[in-house]
């Protein structure tokens, strides 16, 4: 943007010095402001980079310790590896996506395509907005009361997954709604003009057209879900079973890894559990877990971009 001022050209004789001084001051302020703002941005960026580097620096060494990623934890988390926590984190994520994705998808379709004018839609979108503003601890408390206590499931993966679902639905619904609304209206018009229903239009034309944005949003939300802990403290619990059998298909056994009614502990919860432990080994585990968590989040971030771009390219360039 240009910095020159027109005022200089119109200054009269007797007023010139005062006006010049004011203009000079304004231009000096402009330079100062630009400098200060640039410094702010530089500092913020430096802090972000420093944080990520710090975590990785402290914890990456631990990742290569034999058994860290493949062994179970011992002594209530202060020794051993984080294999079960790693598994639980991903298993919780998958369960959450399985439940939240269809609900959010169909919900978004309703809001974009079918929603009639009037109170119904208003109430629905207010409900979703309310859900998105709730602190995750409150969602966790509700999950605890409703599922762990009232339904009797105790600390269980399914309780945690439902709590995470409630946390995830507003995010996903907003992303998918935006993605559907961004599809040009002409695509919808073309379908309807050929005698197709809104349902067919949405399923076969709109959703495929919105797919890059949807996939990007889903992967990004997966990153958020992966790192969430407050909602899980009282729903899936703060410990994994001592032994997990990955080959067992006996879904009701407490040691079956796939049993959704067993307690489980995600990576984030694990960090919270042992961060205060004094022993050096425990501290190594804490940093290693943090590094793993950080790397996974970074991967989700990068993956969402790559997937989004690849899908978009496949759709348009073709």
């Amino acid at each position, binding site marked *: 943007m240009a910095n020159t001022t027109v005022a200089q050209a119109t200054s009269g004789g007797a007023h010139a010095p005062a006006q010049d001084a004011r203009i000079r001051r304004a231009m000096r302020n402009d330079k100062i402001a630009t400098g200060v703002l640039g410094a702010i941005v530089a500092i913020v960026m430096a802090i972000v980079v420093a944080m990520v580097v710090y975590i990785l620096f402290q914890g990456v060494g631990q990742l290569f310790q034999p058994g860290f990623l493949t062994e179970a934890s011992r002594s209530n988390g202060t020794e051993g590896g984080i294999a079960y926590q790693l598994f639980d984190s991903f298993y919780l994520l998958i369960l959450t996506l399985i439940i939240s994705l269809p609900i959010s998808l169909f919900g978004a379709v309703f809001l974009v395509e079918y929603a009639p004018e009037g109170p119904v839609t208003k109430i629905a979108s207010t409900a979703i907005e309310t859900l998105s503003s709730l602190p995750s601890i409150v969602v966790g408390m509700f999950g605890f009361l409703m599922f762990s206590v009232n339904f009797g499931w105790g600390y269980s993966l399914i309780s945690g997954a439902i709590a995470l679902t409630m946390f995830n639905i507003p995010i996903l619904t907003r992303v998918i709604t935006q993605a559907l609304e961004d599809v040009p209206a*002409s*695509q919808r*018009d*073309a379908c309807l003009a*050929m*005698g*197709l229903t809104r349902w067919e239009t949405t399923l076969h034309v709109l959703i495929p057209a919105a797919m890059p944005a949807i996939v990007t949003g889903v992967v990004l939300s997966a990153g958020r879900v992966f790192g969430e802990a407050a909602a899980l403290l009282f729903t899936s619990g703060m410990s994994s079973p001592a032994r997990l059998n990955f080959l067992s298909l006996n879904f009701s056994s407490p040691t079956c890894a796939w049993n959704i009614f067993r307690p489980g502990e995600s990576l984030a919860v694990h960090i919270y559990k042992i961060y205060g432990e004094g022993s050096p080994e425990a501290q190594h585990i804490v940093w290693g877990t943090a590094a793993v968590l950080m790397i996974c989040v970074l991967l989700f971030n990068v993956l969402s971009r790559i997937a989004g771009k690849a899908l978009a390219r496949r759709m348009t360039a073709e």
Partner: protein
Amino acid sequence: MSNTTDAFLASVDSSERAPRVTGRAISDEVMLETHDVNVYYGDNHALHDTSLKFHTGEITALIGPSGCGKSTFLRSLNLMNREIKGCRVTGEIVYEGRNINTKTENLYELRRSIGMVFQQPNPFHKSIRENITFAPKRHGLKDKDALDQLVEESLRGAALWDEVKDKLDESAFALSGGQQQRLCIARTLAMHPDVILFDEPCSALDPISTLAIEDLMLSIVENRAIVIVTHNMEQASRVSNRTAFFYMGDMVEYGETEQIFQRPNDKRLNDYLTGMFS
């Protein structure tokens, strides 16, 4: 085979087609007609008491300045206005001997018979073949041979077959703007409609593609009624048999195209034609 419409024009031997009669009415048979149609957007009374007849084998042009209601009228003919929240259409729209402007009319069947081509070419993000077969499949046509035949028939009808027959499974978005619009026309032809509505189909295209589309319209109008909304007065005089002039929500004058352009009765129409406003 080159992509340009030069090639297309060269490939069409004009002697294959009987000379098209434009400018004059050529048929008495009415395919679609309206009686006192009014359109409201909420409180806004956008179109007043419009009664028109559309004849088989003829192209009718709807002309008028921006915002005069011609597109609104066009979109009520295939009940597309119903998709807009708060839009109300009153009056009779008579097709196949019945009023289709009712709550019980089967929109999904009706829109197979009354098709629409839009201003911006809007092919689906699918292959050329799939663009054409998508709707017929959803309406129940499954036989593969029948579908293939439909694809060739529709693309020939849209004068696009020779240019794309070797790349039917490539994306529709690889085509040029003019080709995409012809694909959209082919897509509509695949439904075997009796009426085709064109909403300013050439305004996003270059002049050569525009002429190609106009020629195409003339070639597919047999046994059909075509209604075209256009901003381009020369286009209206080139292709249509009859013309209706809209002004500020009213249908002001309607008659044979030659009469409308050379001996306009209404002063507002005269002013519009002489370029006093547009």
